[in-house]
Structure formats: structure tokens, C-alpha cells
């Protein structure tokens, strides 16, 4: 396998402009002759599908939800970054680029990240023009707030519902194209196979989730925008339906998987409260603008928070990272919370929680001001916990939230399979080993609105693609494979439910491949996962049939893929003998307990190649070169 990143030569700030000029264009009159499949309709998928249709391509879009508007981008709360420098506080494209590269612990490509920072400004303009009701100042201009890992205010927001509003903007642009007949939208359709013809991505096989019908779709290019795989942990802030199936199918067809072990554990989620729990809920990072994080200084201090006097509290982020304080990046804040709980200073029923306290902010700004900024988040907290965060501090704990890893793509967002493009969280992305807050929305929309629409044209104009339809033998073969897998799941007829397996897998991953990892644990996980997989295929119970709406069957297919992906994640975590960003190997830390990178040996992307059912996958390396920033130990002190 060859990893060609196709980075354009030249100065960092000229690369994208130069590349845009050098890419081939498709004649406007010819665009309607090309068919493009987009799988997933979150920020990346909806914006790409809409924009490609505006350009004149024929687009078919698929999502597993009942409407494209429901993709989980909708749940992003806090905001979207852009280097507008509207606050006159020293922001610039280069500073956003630098913060993102540093935030990712120097494990992302410089050129990609710089391009991301460049187009960030266009995204805000586009979204405003679509009618996104961003927060405004009294003078009518756009408001900003601060987010973790930055010392400037560059985050644009719409109350605590920024993801919702941005997604609705993209969804509306998409529906406009649906109305015009330029996009065919297939909701409640799940992609279950990628189809390659002569080594080139030429279509997908889907299952209609209402009728169970297995169908093939041919195209000139396929775009996967199917999000991240953090539900491998079972308990996560993801929507319940988020899954790895689309990218895992592509991986097994030859697309390299980049940095699978790079997962983000978000520091501010509502703690687990019972065995029956189905998901974890995030409390936006924006709360750290005004909330102060603390635990008691004393171990096992069981007093209610208001009885613990000021001098007996440890505001550990402010203590350890005085310059960034409560706005330290996510990986660092999560690890610090874990450390406090490991020391026996955690709060709440199981001692797995820390306080996020608004007492000072309410005293300083008044309850009204806090309600205006975060009212909906406070309400949500109260609905879940039955506690009033205006009176008692919130209790929070880290949870799986985002995956920086994903399918490897080149500068053109194309995977190692020609014609297969991967955008948004589904690709291995621009976030390196840790994503900064408010950067996911930025990346999803950058890929969908402003990058893929150019690069896919270049691919289509350069490739020589034969006309074909779904009668081709490869489509029939793929359909038969999908059918076989579905029947296999229904045919196990064992005793255990899908969810019970998923929970068990999640527990293994959280314990051994979560916030802190070590060789012993990862090796243990690599024993446990195949054993669990074996049990899965011999004791799984999936009631019902294939030819109708069957949610157990849907989940069973997804968990089968998670059971394979989990092993690759652990393998990747084991091989990366360093700590960087969200990947913390206990063997590699500084005396102060901070992540210790090994740039000499690991300044590269690990891209894994599938080698066959019972073979070890092959680890390839794409070296990362840093010409514009100096590799340093990340310091937020």
C-alpha cells in the first residue's frame, strides 16, 4: 500500500490557492453527467451533498435516521471556531492554525490544518447568509466566546445549540436541492457495503430499514460522511445510532484506517448513574468559561459541597495550569479529573465525578446573566439529575465524545481507494491526537462546503470511468455478501442480547483503551475482544426477521463491526509507544504526569491496512513534517 498525501509544494499559506488553480475542472455542462453518492447527512455530508448539487452534479444521499436533519452534529452545543478576529484580540489564520496543530499534540498535517484555518472565515459568512441565528452583540455584530486551548475569543455560537443551527442550515440547503430534483434523498437507509470495480469505488449496497430490501447504487464517486466510532465504548455522548459500519466496510475493502486509537474523552459530561444507562450527556465546554472545576482537598470528604470551605477545595486546573486554568484542553482536563478521582477525591455516589461550580460566576454576574448564556444546558442538567445547578455545583465526569482517528485521506480527502472520499469525523482528520473545542463543526463544514466540492471535481475530471449500472457482477456479489451477513446474524439464535455484548465490549475498551492505557491492559484487551467476538457469533439473539423494520438486527450488524474495530484500536494503541493528546500511555509520562511524546520514533500517522480475516493488519507510516511550527512539549501552564 502506498500512502501518497499529495500535499502541494510551496509556502504554507499559498498551498491551497495554488492547488485550487492546478486542479482540473469539470465543464459546467458535463457535471450533470456525474453521479455522486454521499453517505451520512451531518454537517459534512449535508453540506457536501448540497454544494455538489448546487454545482450541478447528480447526488444521491443516504442516512440511517428518518430525516437528514437528525444527524448527531445536531447535538454539538458550544460553537464553531473561525479566525475572523472580530474581537480584535490578536487572532489570525496562523494563530488558529497554530493552536489547532499544538492542540492536536503535533500529530496532524500542517498543510491540512492551515487550509482548515483559512476556510474557517468563509464558513461563518456562508452560515450567516443561510440565516443561522448566531448570537449577536447589542450593536448587531456577531458575538464570540472562548473555548479550551485558546487565548482568543474566536468561537461563534447560537445559544447552546450551535450544532443544531449549523446542521439545520446545511439540511435546508440540502432540502432545497431535494426540492429541485438535484439530490435524491434516502432516509432510513443504512449503507452495508462498499462496491469496488477494478479497484475503484463505484457504489454502495444499502438496506432499507423499513422494508429490509437490499439494494445497490452505482456512482462515479462515493463520499463517506458517516461520523465517528466513539460508541465502541457503549457509553458515550454519541447518538445511539452512530456506528462504524460504513468506514469499517471500506477498511475491509482496502481503505487505510488512520490512527484508530486517537479518541477524545470529553471532560464535562454528566456522570454515570446506573447499570441501565444507555448514553452519557455532554455539558458544553463553554461552561468552563464561567464554571470552576474543583474537588475536595481531603480524600473521601463526603460533606455536601456548600459545607466544604474555600481553603479545603482544590481548583486543580487553576492550580496546575494557571494561564489556561479551567480552559485547559480536553485531553488534559479529562486526565486531571481522572487523576483526582483515582486519588480518592472524586465526588458523587461512586466517587467518579468532580464539581463544576458556578457559585462565583453567579455572585459576580447575577443568575440572570448565567441563565441567558447557559439556560438550556442548566435545564438539561436538572432534567437528568434532578439537581438545580444554580444552587448546587454540577457534577461532571469524562466520557467518550469524538474520534480523531478515521479513514486515512490525502490532501484531496480521498482514501487509499480511488474514488472513495471521506469527510468530517469519519476521516482521520485535521485534529491530530486531540481535538480542540469548537473545531469539529469547523472541520465538518470546511470539508463539505469548501474543500471536497473542489477536489472531487479534480478526481472526476482526471479519472476515466466507464459507464456502468448495478447489474454488474460486483454489485450482485456485494448484495449476496450483505444478505449472507444479515442472515448469519439472525441465524445464531443464541441467548444474549446485542446490548449485553455491546456493554461488555464498552467496558473492556473503557478499562483498557480509555483515558489511560498501558501495555498490560492493552494486551489483556487483545485477548478479551476476540473471545467476546466468538461468543457473539455463537450466543447472539436477534428476534424478528430481515424483511421488516428490525432494530435489533440493525444494532447487531453495527456491534459486529465494533467488535472488530475495537481490536484494531487496541493494536494501534499498543504499537504507539508514546503519549500524545488523547492517547496517554502510562509508561510514557513526564515526572509531573504530563503526556510524553516520542517525536523521534512516532512523528507519523499510523495507517492500517486490512490483510484478511485471520491475518494481522499491516501498519504503514506517513511521516509528518513540520516546517512552520516547532515541536515542543505542549504547555498550558
Amino acid at each position, binding site marked *: 500500500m502506498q500512502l501518497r498525501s499529495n500535499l502541494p509544494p510551496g509556502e504554507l499559506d499559498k498551498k491551497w490557492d495554488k492547488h485550487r488553480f492546478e486542479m482540473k475542472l469539470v465543464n459546467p455542462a458535463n457535471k450533470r453527467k456525474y453521479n455522486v453518492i454521499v453517505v451520512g447527512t451531518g454537517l459534512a455530508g449535508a453540506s457536501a451533498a448540497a454544494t455538489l448539487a448546487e454545482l450541478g452534479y447528480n447526488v444521491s444521499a443516504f442516512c440511517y435516521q428518518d430525516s437528514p436533519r437528525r444527524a448527531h452534529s445536531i447535538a454539538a452545543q458550544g460553537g464553531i471556531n473561525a479566525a475572523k478576529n472580530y474581537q480584535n484580540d490578536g487572532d489570525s489564520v496562523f494563530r488558529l492554525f497554530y493552536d489547532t496543530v499544538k492542540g492536536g499534540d503535533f500529530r496532524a498535517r500542517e498543510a491540512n490544518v492551515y487550509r482548515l484555518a483559512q476556510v474557517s472565515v468563509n464558513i461563518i459568512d456562508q452560515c450567516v447568509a443561510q440565516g443561522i441565528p448566531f448570537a449577536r452583540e447589542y450593536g448587531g455584530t456577531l458575538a464570540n466566546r472562548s473555548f479550551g486551548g485558546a487565548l482568543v475569543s474566536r468561537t461563534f455560537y447560537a445559544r447552546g445549540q450551535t450544532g443544531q443551527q449549523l446542521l439545520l442550515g446545511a439540511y435546508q440547503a440540502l432540502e*432545497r436541492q431535494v426540492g429541485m430534483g438535484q439530490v435524491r434523498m434516502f432516509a432510513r437507509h443504512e449503507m452495508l457495503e462498499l462496491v469496488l470495480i477494478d479497484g475503484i469505488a463505484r457504489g454502495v449496497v444499502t438496506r432499507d430499514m423499513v422494508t429490509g430490501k437490499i439494494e445497490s447504487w452505482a456512482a462515479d464517486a462515493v463520499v463517506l460522511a458517516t461520523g465517528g466510532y466513539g460508541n465502541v465504548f457503549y457509553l458515550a455522548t454519541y*447518538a445511539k445510532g452512530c456506528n462504524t459500519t460504513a468506514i469499517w466496510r471500506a477498511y475491509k475493502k482496502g481503505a487505510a484506517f488512520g490512527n484508530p486509537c486517537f479518541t477524545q474523552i470529553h471532560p464535562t459530561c454528566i456522570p454515570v448513574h*446506573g447499570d441501565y444507562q444507555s448514553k452519557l450527556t455532554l455539558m458544553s465546554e463553554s461552561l468552563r468559561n464561567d464554571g470552576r472545576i474543583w474537588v475536595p482537598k481531603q480524600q473521601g470528604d463526603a460533606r455536601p459541597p456548600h459545607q466544604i470551605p474555600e481553603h479545603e477545595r482544590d481548583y486543580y486546573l487553576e492550580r496546575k495550569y494557571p494561564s489556561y486554568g479551567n480552559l485547559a484542553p480536553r485531553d488534559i482536563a479529562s486526565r486531571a479529573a481522572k487523576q483526582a478521582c483515582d486519588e480518592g477525591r472524586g465526588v458523587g455516589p461512586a466517587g467518579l465525578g468532580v464539581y463544576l461550580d458556578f457559585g462565583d460566576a453567579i455572585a459576580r454576574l447575577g443568575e440572570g446573566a448565567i441563565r441567558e448564556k447557559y439556560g438550556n444546558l442548566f435545564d438539561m442538567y436538572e*432534567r437528568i439529575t434532578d439537581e438545580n445547578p444554580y444552587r448546587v455545583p454540577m457534577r461532571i465526569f469524562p466520557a467518550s465524545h469524538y474520534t480523531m482517528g478515521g479513514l486515512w485521506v490525502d490532501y484531496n480527502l480521498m482514501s487509499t481507494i480511488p474514488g472513495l472520499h471521506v469527510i468530517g469525523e469519519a476521516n482521520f482528520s485535521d485534529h491530530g491526537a486531540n481535538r480542540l473545542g469548537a473545531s469539529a463543526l469547523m472541520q465538518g463544514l470546511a470539508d463539505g462546503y469548501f474543500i471536497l466540492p473542489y477536489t472531487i471535481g479534480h478526481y472526476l475530471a482526471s479519472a476515466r470511468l466507464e459507464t456502468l449500472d448495478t447489474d454488474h457482477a460486483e454489485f450482485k456479489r456485494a448484495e449476496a455478501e450483505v444478505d449472507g451477513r444479515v442472515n448469519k446474524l439472525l441465524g445464531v439464535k443464541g441467548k444474549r442480547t446485542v446490548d449485553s455484548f455491546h456493554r461488555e465490549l464498552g467496558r473492556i475498551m473503557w478499562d483498557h483503551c480509555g483515558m489511560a492505557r498501558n501495555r498490560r491492559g492493552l494486551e489483556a484487551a487483545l485477548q478479551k475482544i476476540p473471545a467476546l467476538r466468538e461468543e457473539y457469533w455463537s450466543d447472539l439473539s436477534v428476534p424478528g426477521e430481515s424483511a421488516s423494520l428490525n432494530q435489533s438486527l440493525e444494532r447487531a450488524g453495527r456491534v459486529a463491526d465494533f467488535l472488530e474495530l475495537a481490536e484494531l484500536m487496541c493494536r494501534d494503541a499498543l504499537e504507539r509507544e508514546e503519549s500524545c493528546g488523547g492517547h496517554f500511555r502510562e509508561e510514557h509520562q513526564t515526572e509531573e504526569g504530563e503526556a510524553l511524546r516520542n517525536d523521534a520514533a512516532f512523528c507519523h500517522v499510523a495507517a492500517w491496512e486490512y490483510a484478511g480475516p485471520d491475518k494481522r493488519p499491516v501498519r504503514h507510516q506517513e511521516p509528518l513534517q513540520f516546517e512552520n511550527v516547532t515541536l515542543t512539549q505542549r504547555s498550558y501552564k
Partner: protein
Amino acid sequence: MRGAAGTMKLTLHVWRQKGPHEAGRFVSYQAPEISPDMSFLEMLDVVNEALTTRGEEPIAFDYDCREGICGMCGMVINGIPHGPRRATTACQLHMRSFKDGDAITIEPWRAAAFPVLKDLVVDRSALDRVIAAGGFVSVATGSAPDGNAIPIPKENAELSMDAAACIGCGACVAACPNASAMLFTAAKISHLGLLPQGQPEREARVLKMVAEMDAARFGSCTNHGECEAACPKEISLGFIARMNRDYLKATLASGRRAARAGDGSAG
């Protein structure tokens, strides 16, 4: 009154329907050992796990984000869409809103425009078609001016956001005796109509969206106000009044515009 270790024992009467063309009926289930800290959907998960273990088909219901924002979940609980707690989706409703021994009736959204697909799952694609008819600003990617080029009074942006908060769950339709989608449609029309970006298409938008709403077999508004009471995002009934004003203005102006565009379809 709570049972062992603070748990509750409940009886559920759940609408079961195998497919879109089959007759449905209520089936009763026991739900023992329900913790008050469970969400309503987690309670159904527990019931479904038990059904699955017995080899029976679990109750089908839509869900996704489980944090009240995607709009995917929706069921009528004891006659109220999303259940008894105000401004709360079914996924955010917690069992502490019920008490030990309660009987709970669970049904799908009922509306001609929302055919039942299975059990509690309905087809809400009619709402997407209403948006596709005109719920957007026609601005192609790349053609936008600077974000701060047009200042927008904070008050207008806030009011627009109030309308934009709609999650498209369809509870308003389910609550309405006429199965009207006026609150849903009015929310989008108001969100865009309150912003300068939404002005150029304001008249065409309301005419097209209302026409599509009628075509999709949603009923008309007769001012019951049930929609506002059921809305998990507390979208105000005032937006319907706003839409009606826009519709009236647009109808009067449509002859003029149709003549100018040489197109009679806008009316």
C-alpha cells in the same frame, strides 16, 4: 411509594403494530424494578431486553441522540405527546415523573400525514417535504458577503433563535385535534422571516410551504393551542399569528409577483 431499593413497578399498555398495512392493538407489559433515575426510553430498553431474552420481538420506537435535540423520539404517553413533563422530550423525561403502581399508555403519533411504520415508529417525511418546498434561504455556497456586513439587532436574532429551536419531532401535529403542522411551519417561516437574509424570498416561502403543508394532509389551525403546550422546545403560538400575517400579505402580493415572473405557480 417506591418498591425495593426505591424502584417502581409499572404496567405498560403499548401500541403494537407489525407493519404499515396491518392492524394494531394495545398489549400490556409489566415493568418491574424501574429506577426513578431512568429516562423513559431507558425504561423501554429494560422492557425490550426482557422481551428479547424471552425471544419475543421488542417494541420498536424511534430514538437517536437521547439528549432532547435530534427530534427523532416521540410517543404519546398517557395521552400527551412526549409525556407529562413540560418542555421535555420523551428521551429526557425521567421515571421520577411517575410513581410505583402506575399504568402508562404508550402510543405512536397519530396523524394522517404520519403513517405508522411499526409499533411506535411513524413516517414523518412530510415535514421534510414542507422544508423542501421553501424552508431555506437560496444562497449557494461561496456567494456570501462578510458575516458582519449586515448588523442584526440582538432582539431580532434572539427571537429568530426562539423559532429556530424547533427540533421537528412532530409533537405539535400529534397534539393537535386537526393534526395541523402550523406550529412547525410557522417556526421555520418566522426563523427566516425575522432575519434580513430571509426577506427576498419571504412571500414565496410562506405560500409554497403552506401549499405543501396542505398537500401533505396536515389539518388547519383552529387555535386550540395544544401544539404549544406539547412542544418540547416551547415554540410560541405567536409564530402562527406571524405566519398568518405573512400568508395574507403574500397572497395579496402574489398576483403582482406571478405576473412579473411569468409564473402562476406561486399563487
